[in-house]
């Protein structure tokens, strides 16, 4: 990594900074980790130290913080100083938000960029945060699993919901958007986590009352599209656990993935009204699907057939998911010792 400095004019040579005496880096008495700086960064930090010591909150201070965080977006101290300066100068925070949008385009990422954004939205406190929600949706397109972004989206909704500014329609729109994300990539674990929030965990979530069947069908259909999708299986098991539902009633939807000989597979009854696997299964589906076998084993335990469940765990341990033999052995022993 190199920084071109040939055209850089040191701050000491700029009229604007005439009156400031820069404070040089003090690495401590016997630096174990002396820092070598590029001229520009060192210069900016020397002046920042002087400004901060004098607690100067001015336009030039603001500009200086921007210069520094463009070079080093993780510098906590400088971000904090920027925020307090913005507030003291009563700057237009929506303009600052635009600047942050620009930062994002230039790929200046850090925890601090996100926290700064959170503070800005808190201060701006718009009556309708849709513009920001839309912005976050857009920013997820090139980076659909960014943990910061999803956590921020969660904060946005929680915060503005508490202020009474999220309508029922917005929740519905958000669900549609989440479904679109999962349509694009059914394996996006972050999107599944968001769906859980929208459908189960958020204040006012409706699934418990009358949406359970739809929710189960949604996740079953996802499994049928991508049978090895861990996120979808976790979601299914999460639903059953959370709502205290038995596994057995859904078995018909799962059995085709267990690679049992077709002669032993029961026929799917006419009145089975949950989504069933495609016939034939999607082309690239290696069988059996380990999580389907786990489902089967857990259903067998539910039915009191512990010995049979133990055999399924044994197959997982020795043949179908050997990497996790330790876990499957534990499950098998549990069955046998019951």
């Amino acid at each position, binding site marked *: 990594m190199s920084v071109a400095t040939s055209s850089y004019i040191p701050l000491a040579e700029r009229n604007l900074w005439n009156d400031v005496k820069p404070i040089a880096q003090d690495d401590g008495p016997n630096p174990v980790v002396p*820092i070598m700086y590029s001229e520009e960064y060192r210069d900016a930090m020397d002046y920042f130290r002087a400004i901060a010591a004098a607690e100067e909150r001015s336009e030039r201070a603001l500009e200086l913080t921007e210069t520094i965080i463009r070079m080093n977006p993780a510098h906590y101290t400088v971000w*904090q100083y920027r925020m307090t300066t913005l507030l003291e100068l009563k700057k237009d925070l929506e303009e600052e938000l635009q600047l942050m949008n620009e930062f994002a385009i230039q790929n200046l990422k850090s925890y601090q960029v996100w926290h700064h954004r959170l503070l800005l939205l808190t201060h701006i406190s718009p009556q309708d945060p849709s513009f920001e929600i839309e912005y976050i949706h857009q920013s997820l397109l090139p980076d659909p699993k960014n943990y910061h972004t999803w956590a921020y989206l969660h904060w946005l909704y929680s915060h503005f919901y508490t202020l009474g500014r999220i309508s029922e329609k917005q929740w519905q729109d958000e669900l549609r958007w989440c479904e679109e994300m999962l349509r694009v990539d059914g394996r996006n674990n972050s999107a599944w986590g968001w769906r859980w929030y929208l459908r189960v965990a958020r204040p006012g979530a409706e699934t418990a009352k009358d949406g359970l069947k739809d929710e189960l069908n949604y996740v079953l259909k996802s499994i049928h599209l991508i049978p090895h999708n861990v996120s979808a299986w976790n979601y299914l098991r999460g639903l059953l656990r959370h709502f205290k539902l038995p596994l057995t009633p859904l078995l018909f939807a799962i059995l085709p993935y267990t690679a049992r000989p077709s002669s032993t597979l029961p026929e799917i009854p006419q009145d089975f009204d949950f989504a069933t696997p495609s016939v034939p299964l999607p082309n690239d589906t290696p069988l059996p699907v380990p999580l389907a076998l786990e489902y089967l084993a857990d259903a067998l335990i539910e039915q009191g057939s512990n010995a049979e469940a133990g055999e399924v765990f044994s197959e997982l341990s020795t043949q179908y998911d050997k990497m996790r033999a330790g*876990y499957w052995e534990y499950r098998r022993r549990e069955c046998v010792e019951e």
Partner: protein
Amino acid sequence: MAAASSSSASSTSKLDVPLHIKYIQNLDKRQDLAFHLTSHLRLNGIYWGLTASHIMGQPSALDREGVIEYVLSCWDEEAGALGPHPNHDGHILATLSGIQIMLMEDAIDRIDVDSVTKFLLDRINPDGSVSGDSWGEIDTRFTYILLSSLSLLGRLDRVPQDKREKIVEYISRCRNFDGGFGRVPGAESHSGQVWVCTAALSILDRQDLIDVPLLGAWLSERQLPNGGLNGRPEKLEDVCYSWWCLASISILGKLNWINKDKLIHFILGAQDLEDGGIADRPGDWVDVFHTIFGVAGLSLLGYPGLEDIDPVYCMPAKIIDKVGLRKPYATLPRMVTYP
């Protein structure tokens, strides 16, 4: 050489301890921009390097006086905390690293424990969440750091009972449908956040709030066919998850739910056998962050010649045992040779 170099291990490699010690000792001789741009991590970097040195059996690899002076120079008098580098604001992240370093250097008495205690206690929010500093960022990482810092200082009892309960409640709210934990309530389960939450609950003696089989299964599912561990479903493996996942599963008492040989092979393959250090995965550039977590993971797996590491505190087990802070966790027997 100054620039980061790429890992080059073959499938039959062993852990080259002398080389990695040299790598750690040479960290401060780097001259590049990347090094100074990470000044906000400097104190953390020393903690990573020092802990790795301890685990590799060379506690004196770094100059003790130099390290102590440096820690003290990071003191932020106004905040009553340590910053990551001189003239950086005090922050909870740097404060823990400073405490850990001073404990390892047997110089904890040189820290203003009263001021640090006050700084830490002030980070607890009414809803039981914990902020990193007065700026207000919230993250379960900070929850763990608060508890770890206070307990290492012997001041955990300064947390009032009602706040302690709030903290426990907040962590519970961060538990997800898959048994894992996220950064804030509702945030996706992530191996790093899983570790800080399980370790935090362990420090508070509230491991009962963990669904062990469910979380253990989720953690074991992090292991990919190449033996490495990832942070969440459908993401790439990374050596640092050898720590976050492994330490978590050790706290749960289920270390054997991870395939030991495959993980050892993966970590060893991420070494740079020319210039030292460990990378996030074989073929990538090394750094001290992945070096400590690779070595720590190997230690938990019983790799020969390494010292024991405590999975709750990510510090030498000897030191944690000596100060009486050891919590229940599983270990694998230390092997004599490997393979």
